[in-house]
């Protein structure tokens, strides 16, 4: 699923100019303000000055079918609030949420329940399991709410239990499980209704690093089978790197930048974004295509490598070929030439925190 050119794909879910204000008069400022679209930062400032909390300010992005869209940001930057707006757990103060082109905010309570029963699944940071139900009943709970009969419930639940690898734990209660196992239950429950859109709010943040890594692999495996449209929240850039097709970075309720992880690394919009990306090992992120330069002379006879080769995997060839290697696209076209000098320059600019230098290569 990585690096598919998702831009060309259909949009599954999108939010347009979404605001969420907590306070005494949330929509006082938003009703008919010109700044709402023109200068959201100014408007947000004005609302904050009135003593209210701006959790989301003019947030817009699209999530494509089958894509993993990651939202990142510091604590309090409004990540949870925006997914809750997307699922309408929280009512946005202004803006539009479109699911398959339909405005979610216009749906009645009844229609919403139907949508949640069939089209949405959500995973929570602290699992949100029901303490009085065992594993299988927790997972089958959404189906029970729909009034499906027991045999159907359990056979469907068994399927997702297998998917998350919890066989044999069906009759345990949540408090008898480890954190990782509990989150598997949370994942299985959110998948039991076979949703199209899958929300995950920091699903692995409560787990220790080793388990987290393992759960990320598990997540990637599941997604490679199911191809859901995913909104995934994290505050860990490494996690985002591993799983994101595209990502958005948020600060103080606003989206600062949207793009592929590598775009954010190479072209951070500002220092805030750069702070997130600065401790990323570049050789594990940059690929041959990212550093390819215009060839100075003829390229015939040089070694050829695919454009998506990670730099850490092409060091051998570079060492053997002082004159460089040719980087080719998926269709065999020549993208440019990669040289040892170019790689070193790119890595140097990464470690010296001066990505302007690297921009030349992108």
């Amino acid at each position: 699923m990585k690096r598919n050119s998702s831009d060309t794909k259909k949009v599954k879910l999108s939010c347009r100019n979404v605001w969420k204000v907590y306070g005494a008069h949330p929509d006082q400022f938003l009703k008919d303000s010109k700044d709402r679209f023109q200068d959201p930062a100014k408007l947000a400032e004005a609302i904050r000055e009135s003593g209210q909390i701006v959790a989301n300010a003019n947030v817009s992005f699209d999530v494509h079918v089958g894509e993993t869209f990651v939202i990142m940001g510091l604590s309090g930057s409004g990540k949870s609030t925006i997914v809750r707006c997307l699922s309408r757990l929280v009512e946005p103060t202004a803006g539009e949420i479109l699911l398959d082109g339909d405005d979610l905010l216009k749906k009645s309570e009844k229609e919403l329940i139907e949508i949640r029963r069939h089209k949405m699944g959500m995973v929570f940071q602290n699992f949100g399991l029901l303490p009085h139900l065992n594993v299988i009943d927790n997972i089958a709970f959404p189906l029970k709410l729909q009034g499906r009969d027991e045999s159907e419930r359990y056979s469907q639940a068994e399927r997702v239990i297998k998917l998350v690898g919890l066989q044999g734990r069906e009759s345990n209660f949540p408090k008898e499980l480890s954190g990782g196992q509990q989150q598997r239950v949370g994942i299985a429950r959110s998948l039991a209704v076979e949703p199209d859109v899958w929300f995950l709010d920091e699903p692995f943040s409560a787990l220790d690093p080793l388990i987290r890594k393992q759960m990320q692999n598990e997540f990637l495996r599941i997604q490679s089978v199911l191809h859901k449209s995913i909104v995934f929240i994290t505050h860990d850039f490494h996690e985002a790197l591993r799983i994101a097709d595209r990502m958005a970075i948020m600060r103080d309720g606003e989206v600062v930048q949207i793009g592929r992880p590598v775009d954010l690394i190479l072209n951070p919009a500002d220092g805030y974004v750069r702070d997130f990306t600065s401790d990323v090992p570049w050789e594990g992120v940059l690929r041959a295509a990212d550093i390819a330069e215009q060839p100075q002379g003829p390229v015939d006879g040089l070694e050829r490598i695919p454009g998506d080769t990670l730099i850490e995997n092409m060091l051998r060839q570079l060492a053997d070929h002082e004159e460089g290697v040719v980087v080719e696209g998926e269709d065999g076209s020549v993208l440019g030439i990669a040289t040892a000098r170019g790689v070193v320059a790119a890595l140097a600019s990464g470690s010296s925190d001066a990505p302007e230098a690297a921009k030349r290569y992108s």
Partner: protein
Amino acid sequence: MLAKFDRGFAQWIAVIIVTLIFVVAQKEWGWLSKYPEGWIIPLDDALNAILDWLVGNLGWFFLGISWLLDWPIKGVRWALNSLPWAVSVFLVTLIAQAASGWRLAVFALLSTLYMVVIGYWEESMNSLSLLAISVPLAILVGFSFGVLGFFSRRAERAIMPMLDILQTVPAFAYLLLILTLFGFGTVVGLIASVLYSFPPMVRNTIVGLRGVSDEIIESGIMSGATPAQLFWQVRVPSSLRQLLLGVNQATMASLSMVIIASIIGGTADIGWEVLSTIRKAQFGESLLAGLVIALMAMIIDRVTSGFAARSGEYDPTEKSFARRHRYWIAAIIGTVLFFALAEFVNVLEEWPREMEFSPAGALNDGLTYLIVNFRTEIETIKTLSLFFVMLPTKIGLQMAVSPFTWGFAMTPAHAAAYAFGMIAIAAFCTAKWNWRIGIFILLFAIFFYIGLTNMPWPAVVLVYSVAGWRIGGYRLGIGTALGFGFMAATGIWHEAMLSIYLCGIAVIISFAIGASIGIWAAHNDTVSAIMRPINDTLQTMPLFVILIPFVMIYKIGEFTALLAIIAYAFVPAVRYSEHGLRNLPENVIEAARMMGSTKWQMLWQVKVPLALPVMMLGLNQTIMYGIAMLVIAALVGTKGLEQVVYVGLSDGNFGHGFVAGIGMAIIAIIADRMTQAWSGKRQVELGLA
């Protein structure tokens, strides 16, 4: 040095000066020392008129309810009484086993056998049948109000004060109301017990429903729950443990009220047995009957809390149908079996009179022996406490010190020495700690010299109101002023001071004893292990029963009441002190240890100050327990508000008793708010909240 004093100090000095002026001036102006008769608002007459109106106009309505409620009580009573005792004993044992295992089962078996053998089976069943109706009703009412309060903050704001009043107005004050409206009979006990026991269910329901985490609720919504599904399938089951805690508390409150309500008589239950034997001075018998109540209370408490603790417990092994339903199967088989046995073996059906075993006579003899042989010791304890603690607090050193009591008369020289001594102590404490302690000592010195009942009433109102204001803000200050004003204006001032005097002494002693034991228990696991069952037993013990041993030794009087209150009220002080000291932040203790503090420094300069907010909550509970016991202590002839309440009940003067009851509620609520506010403030200051 000066920085230690702030505006509060100046305010208190002003209060002290005004108080002293009032004290001096009350000799000139009589209205200062005694609230003038002419100013008294005849609230009791108004209340009586309301009651008359209710009886006259809506009497049929209440009698109708009474008639309706009488049927289920009669039904259960009949069922429990016609069941062979062997079947009941078996079922109780089985329930105990299911709730908490074989230890409780053995305890339940022995306890119920005791009830049979001692000859109180029928009385016990009569009390139990009332409980069997009142508990479900209380749970239903409590849960409904709880749900209402959960959904609507406005409803909650209306409900909460109602609960405070129901839990603090003494039952004796409204028993007469119920009696007049619903008519004589067991229904009175039922209604009183529901009224008293549904409030804890409301509180626990609200806390439980509110306490469900946002994520669980959100996960329910995202699972596609409708609002009704969300409530019944997500919120309620997620708060089950708290709800069951509410059931436990409601049950215990219900039982205690069933016992208290038997004071109106005609119920032929176990509470009546205790009361009537006390009145006839048959202490051996009343002790045996009291033990029955205590045992019942303990079984019911352990069973309900056992089920609460087991909720959500899970045994992962796969089980067959028979194993999963083993208790139901056992219940059916056992019941049939014992029924059949009882058909042939008559003893199992009804325990014959001549086989009853009652050591009451022996108990009475033992008691007589004790009293005769230790007369001097018993009398000395009483006299010392009376002369040196109780009398001075009540009427002041100025009157209590006489050649007869203290061995000398109070001369101006003595008084001056007292004044200088106290000022010196106050100054010393101010220098060493802070001015608050100094001010407290000065106020105490004045009150102790004049005596609580001889203090000018405006001075008392002033001191308490300013204390309320300083501790809990202006609202509490105004509330306190209004509350004390109410007691002056309705003509119950003198009795109120007598209640505060008796309860105050008892609370101070209880807290001193309780906190000391608590501190000890926090540092010594053996003490802790010994105290736990003692505390549990005392806390579940119905109040009447605690009175018995003290009446046996000291007969009636204020001293008996004092001892009974202490015996009941020291328990929360132990609990909270131990809890507070055992749950201190570990890093602070370690830091202090690293600084090289000795054990005593650690205790007094680190642990106790940090645990003080929690200990204050213990004091709060000590006061509440003390007031609860004070109400019952009216039976042994105290003289305060509680006595007015009691007399109101026995004389049929509802208004009079009820006004006094409100007075007691006011005292309780003010004390509660002050200690809570103080504890809360302190926790914030210490960064613990």
